[in-house]
């Protein structure tokens, strides 16, 4: 009896919460903008709902907040939840746009309810190989060594392969603790894609949002979970996005890029990787292990997916307005949030792509 009473109470609470949220949204929709007309045309009131990748979420939230100031009548809700969730919900027509760290598989393309969709590249950010060895600054690693470390073939820091790359460092015999994600993640997907591309003969786990990690690795939830393990364990190493690595003040390795140069995970290195990447006609591109002397090899791309043929005029205009804002003014917000803005060439292509959105 006690048990059956609990869920009912909880259900009521959830319903009440929904009602409040719904009421709040309704209120926002109805408000008529009171600001005087600026140079940009004011958009009709609309609410855009979106979900998807959590990797660029901090950046999107900044852009959404600043867009709200420019266009008070448009509300944008970005719910996160993961790239897979975003793609699925766009496919089912539940959201107006989706964030995704990966591309849609060819077999899934016909399943998209409203037909053709566009890739809009937004930002990139480096994925660091962060480690915890207080006495070793500026660790240098190459793809083969990273692959062997994460497959547990190299298990101590004074291994010959690491020594060969760091002849001057005093490497301790500390055992290596590998930290990886416990949840499915676009960060894992991009990190493993890099290893597939840069260490094809060594890396055997293939790529994906979840791979079959060796059992003696430590699993952390989210980028900050992995950062927490690295931070708390001497001898630990893990892949963490730059902003979380910085937030936990981790030190990260410089990696050997395709040109044979060692490059630190910086926003400049990431922008350089974008310039070296080949951009396809649909604006999909792969900046991993890119060419270029200054390119950092693990740059993670991310896109916003939108349907080409829109059905609602107000929404379509708001959507186009938001994405245009994200690609113009929004790019200035990227660096503060530890993301690298798009190079001009790619940005111009992305803006041109937006013009092909059909507004009814």
């Amino acid at each position, binding site marked *: 009896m006690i048990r059956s009473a609990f869920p009912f109470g909880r259900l009521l609470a959830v319903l009440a919460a929904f009602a409040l949220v719904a009421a709040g949204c309704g209120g926002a929709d109805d408000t008529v903008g009171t600001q005087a007309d600026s140079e940009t045309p004011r958009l009709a009131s609309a609410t855009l709902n979106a979900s998807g990748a959590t990797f660029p979420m901090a950046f999107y939230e900044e852009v959404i907040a600043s867009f709200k100031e420019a266009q008070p009548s448009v509300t944008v809700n970005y719910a996160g939840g993961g790239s897979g969730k975003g793609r699925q919900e766009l496919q089912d027509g539940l959201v107006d746009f989706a964030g995704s760290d990966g591309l849609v598989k060819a077999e899934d393309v016909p399943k998209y309810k409203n037909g053709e969709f566009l890739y809009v590249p937004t930002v990139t950010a480096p994925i660091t190989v962060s480690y915890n060895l207080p006495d070793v600054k500026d660790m240098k690693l190459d793809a083969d060594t990273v692959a062997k470390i994460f497959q547990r073939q190299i298990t101590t820091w004074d291994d010959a392969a690491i020594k060969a790359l760091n002849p001057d460092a005093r490497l301790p015999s500390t055992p290596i603790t590998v930290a990886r994600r416990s949840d*499915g993640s676009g960060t894992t997907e991009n990190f493993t894609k890099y290893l597939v591309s840069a260490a094809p003969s060594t890396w055997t786990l293939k790529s994906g949002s979840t791979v079959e990690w060796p059992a*003696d690795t430590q699993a952390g*939830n989210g980028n900050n979970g992995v950062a927490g393990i690295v931070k708390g364990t001497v001898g630990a190493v893990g892949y963490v996005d730059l902003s979380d690595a910085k937030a936990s003040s981790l030190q990260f390795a410089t990696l050997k890029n395709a040109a044979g140069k060692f490059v630190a995970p910086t926003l400049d290195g990431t922008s350089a990787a974008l310039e070296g990447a080949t951009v396809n006609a649909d604006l999909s591109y792969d900046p991993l292990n890119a060419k270029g002397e200054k390119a950092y090899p693990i740059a993670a791309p991310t896109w916003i997916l939108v349907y080409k043929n829109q059905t609602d005029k107000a929404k379509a205009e708001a959507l186009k307005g938001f994405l245009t804002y994200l690609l113009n003014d929004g790019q200035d917000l990227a660096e503060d949030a530890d993301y690298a803005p798009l190079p001009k060439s790619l940005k111009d292509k992305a803006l041109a792509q937006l013009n092909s959105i059909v507004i009814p």
Partner: protein
Amino acid sequence: MTTTTPPPTGLQPARSARGDTAFRAASFLCGFTVLAILGLIAVSMTQKALPALQAEGLGFLTSARWAPNEGRFGALAFIYGTMVISAIALVFAVPVSIGIALFLTEVAPRRLRKVVSYVIDLLAAVPSVVYGLWGVLVLSAVIVDAYDAVGRVLAPVPLVGRLFEGPANGRSLFTAGLILALMITPIITAITREIFDTVPQGQKEAAVALGATRWEMIRGAVFPHSRSGMVGAVMLGLGRAMGETIAAALVIGSSPRISAQLFGPGDALPSVIAFQFGEASGTYRSALIALGVILFAMTIIVNMAARVIVNRGQEARAA
């Protein structure tokens, strides 16, 4: 709880029973809604799980290889992990819970009894993510040393040693089991306490009058009277342990494997669903829903088993 029995004849009210009819209809509707929701959940989940089940066939249940990036989906390691952590949870929670309940009903002075009961009920209300965070931030860091110590002592022991050997990991099946034990203790305690309270005072006094010590009285009068209720309480705890998601997910280590090493990482059905659903699409997504169907079936079986045991106990006593 869901069966609707007609009111006993001979007690019909003399006046028109329109209100009664309406009440019966309404309560019947409510009862039926529960069944309908349960049925619809089962149907729609199975439907969405079908693509994965068709792709893998029986291998979905018999394979332990979970490699979504290569399109291989086997649930066995997760089923194993779910059962292992639930078992560990019960091993620790049941004796402690029954001990607390006995203390509260038979030993503790009245005033203390109120305070302790209140604290136990409070523990049941702590959200599971709080247990999980405590587990991952505090327990998993501290307990590795204890694991190492236990491993050093017990690993050389034949057979049992297999359970405790290998590199100890703070995020492991054992840690998940301990967290679950903590979480189900209040439930089992609360229910067994109620049951011990129903033991007729006369029977207890009779046992004492025959010269029984307090323990002999508990063994001879309290336990036989409460056996089926205790089993029911344990089964309810087990049901919660099997379905518990986030607390277990944070400390279990997320490594799909079947291994006797309790101090090594594993994975459980609810944890995988929670952690991988966001990035899943297509067959992968469908495979995760199929894991949900398996979990659904497992919890229903446990709850039905509990009901059967409780009913049988009642019949035996009634006879």
